């Protein structure tokens, strides 16, 4: 059967030998395939992009200061702290679990840095390392409870939320808050340090270049392996769009203070996590465990180790987010990590497109989602609205995001997509 077909038309690629399948080619084809995907419920990051456009349009029309470069630079500073926590949430959501204690862990990490560094006189790097190690330890404990005792992560992390908050209040003691010294490297990093213009422009050019190089390499390798090759025009269009877009954004932000180094760290972590989740065996295993735990186990994946890595990474990122938050506020207080930090981090991951049901998500959802959340917060602050309204609106946005996730999931099921 296949021999006859290949004999009739020799140049068919290995993956195009089956003539019954429709393959979209070229730029028009890519667009058509995209529309097909969206219609069947494979939304990707479309909802968050649409949401972002709506939110920015509304806030800009209410107060033009919103899109000023100085406000956006502040927004990037604020994004980074909770964004790093949201990145950890993406890890646990990928395996279909949850960590409700990230806020408490971040608060305790900032309290640890304050106590060890300012009160006990430890070197700042050592204090930060201790806080991160503590975070990873708490996550490992959740994994232990989950793997060995079958304790649902919902319950164990809820218990952790209270316990860790108690520890935070305990080590802060009667004073209740510790001020971090202004002028120290940590506080400068959290409040002042921005990239020089040439650095930010160079960094903005890197994603496009990387895409081009890896795209061309894949192109050559696929051709050598007799597999169909994606359209070169599409690749060049994508690279051009991304490079021009990023350079414009950077140029606009550079009119004010410029890109914060802290935001650079956050984006760097997002890119690293994206690589780990999509291009490594570990990431493949994470997706598999989130999609079908038993299938992953039967494929020989060490499911317990995967859960351990997910929980530990989540708490580690939460602790790092806490350290950054302390740097941003120049203080470690009893309020750190309480209130809406927990839910903002979870909401950011979900709004960005990581499914609550496991097995679907991307590191970029933390970046996109936190920009949405912070945009709402920043816009409402500019309108001089109270935090009560901010909570309600953020809650509504989260509800909408989850509804979109559920509906898309149902639609995917009926269209035969995962």
């Amino acid at each position, binding site marked *: *059967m296949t021999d006859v077909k290949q004999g009739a038309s020799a140049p068919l690629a290995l993956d195009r030998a089956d003539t019954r399948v429709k393959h979209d080619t070229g730029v028009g084809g890519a667009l058509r395939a995209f529309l097909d995907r969206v219609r069947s419920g494979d939304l990707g990051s479309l909802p968050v992009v649409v949401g972002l456009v709506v939110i920015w349009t509304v806030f800009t029309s209410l107060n033009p200061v919103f899109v000023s470069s100085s406000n956006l630079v502040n927004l990037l500073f604020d994004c980074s702290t909770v964004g790093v926590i949201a990145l950890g949430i993406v890890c646990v959501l990928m395996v279909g679990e949850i960590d409700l204690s990230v806020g408490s862990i971040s608060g305790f990490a900032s309290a640890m840095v304050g106590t060890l560094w300012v009160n006990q006189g430890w070197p700042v790097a050592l204090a930060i390392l201790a806080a991160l190690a503590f975070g990873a330890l708490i996550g490992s404990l959740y994994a232990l409870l989950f793997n060995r005792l079958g304790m649902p992560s919902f319950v164990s992390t809820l218990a952790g939320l209270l316990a860790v908050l108690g520890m935070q209040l305990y080590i802060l003691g009667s004073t209740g808050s510790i001020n971090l010294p202004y002028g120290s490297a940590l506080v400068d990093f959290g409040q002042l340090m921005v990239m020089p213009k040439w650095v930010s422009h160079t960094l903005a050019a890197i994603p496009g270049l990387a895409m081009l190089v890896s795209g061309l390499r*894949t192109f050559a*390798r696929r051709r050598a392996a007799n597999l169909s090759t994606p359209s070169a025009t599409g690749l060049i269009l994508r690279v051009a769009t991304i490079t021009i877009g990023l350079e414009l954004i950077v140029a606009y932000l550079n009119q004010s203070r410029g890109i914060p180094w802290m935001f650079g760290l956050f984006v760097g972590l997002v890119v690293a996590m994206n690589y780990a989740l999509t291009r490594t065996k570990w990431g493949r295993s994470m997706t598999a465990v989130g999609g*079908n735990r038993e299938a992953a186990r*039967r494929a020989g994946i060490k499911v317990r180790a995967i859960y351990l890595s997910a929980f530990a990474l989540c708490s580690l990122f939460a602790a790092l987010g806490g350290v950054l938050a302390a740097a941003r506020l120049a203080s470690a207080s009893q309020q750190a990590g309480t209130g809406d930090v927990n839910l903002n981090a979870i909401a950011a991951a979900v709004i960005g497109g990581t499914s609550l049901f496991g097995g679907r998500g991307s590191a970029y959802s933390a970046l996109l989602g936190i920009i949405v959340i912070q945009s709402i917060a920043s816009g409402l602050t500019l309108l001089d609205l109270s935090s009560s309204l901010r909570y309600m609106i953020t809650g509504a946005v989260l509800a909408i995001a989850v509804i979109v996730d559920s509906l898309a999931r149902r639609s995917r099921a009926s269209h035969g997509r995962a």
Partner: protein
Amino acid sequence: MNESPERSASVGELVLSLRGISKHFGAVSALTDIDFDVHAGEVVALVGDNGAGKSTLVKILAGVHQPSSGTINFRGRAVTLPDPRAALTLGIATVFQDLALCENLDVVANIFLGNELSPLRLDEVAMEMRAWTLLNELSARIPSVREAVASLSGGQRQTVAIARSLLLEPKLILLDEPTAALGVAQTAEVLNLIDRVRARGLGVVMISHNMEDVRAVADRIVVLRLGRNNGVFEPDASNQDLVSAITGASNNAVSRRAERLRMERDHSDSEQAGEQHP
């Protein structure tokens, strides 16, 4: 085991040998004192009624369940199979009845799940090429290996599952109802594939309810009944013998019909005989 001598001479070394395997789930004994042998280059069909313990036996061999008692010998060595990874490393590949594919991953990712090439920098091109090679060997009809498994039909999923089991060049392949969800052409393809796998000197254990499929490829038919060994048959054994071994009774619809046909044939034979010799 009651094998005929000429058959055991034609097959290779003993790949797998189970002795006295039992498995209890709480108060229920799924398997009791099972003995089971597979040689290289041999297809052993495992048949039995629902609840006879076929799937449990396969799951024990795949490392999914652990036996309550008994010994497993694989290629001459006593082994334990504490988890699926151990079975895979030894060279026992399994295609499960509930296919155990991740619906949210694409075909390539499923075929290579747990055995990805270059773990720190996944080699997608090499994996895709190997996937197509495997699938083409099975004459598979897969539209795209970059499509999530959720979009494939049952037969296509079965093909993906079988392709995956062949990836690691196993010594023994366990197929749990490999043809249950397949169309006529695909069933024939899978049976051809089983022949090819046997020709490569692998041991094959195949669970099936379909006696035609079993007779088409099996070298031996092992019958389980209520978790116990209930006889070993040649593929040319009569349907009546097989059915009575499976159901444990010789008085049922299948055997009664066979009996009736035999009686009618005898009757007409004797009538013919009578006409020839008035």
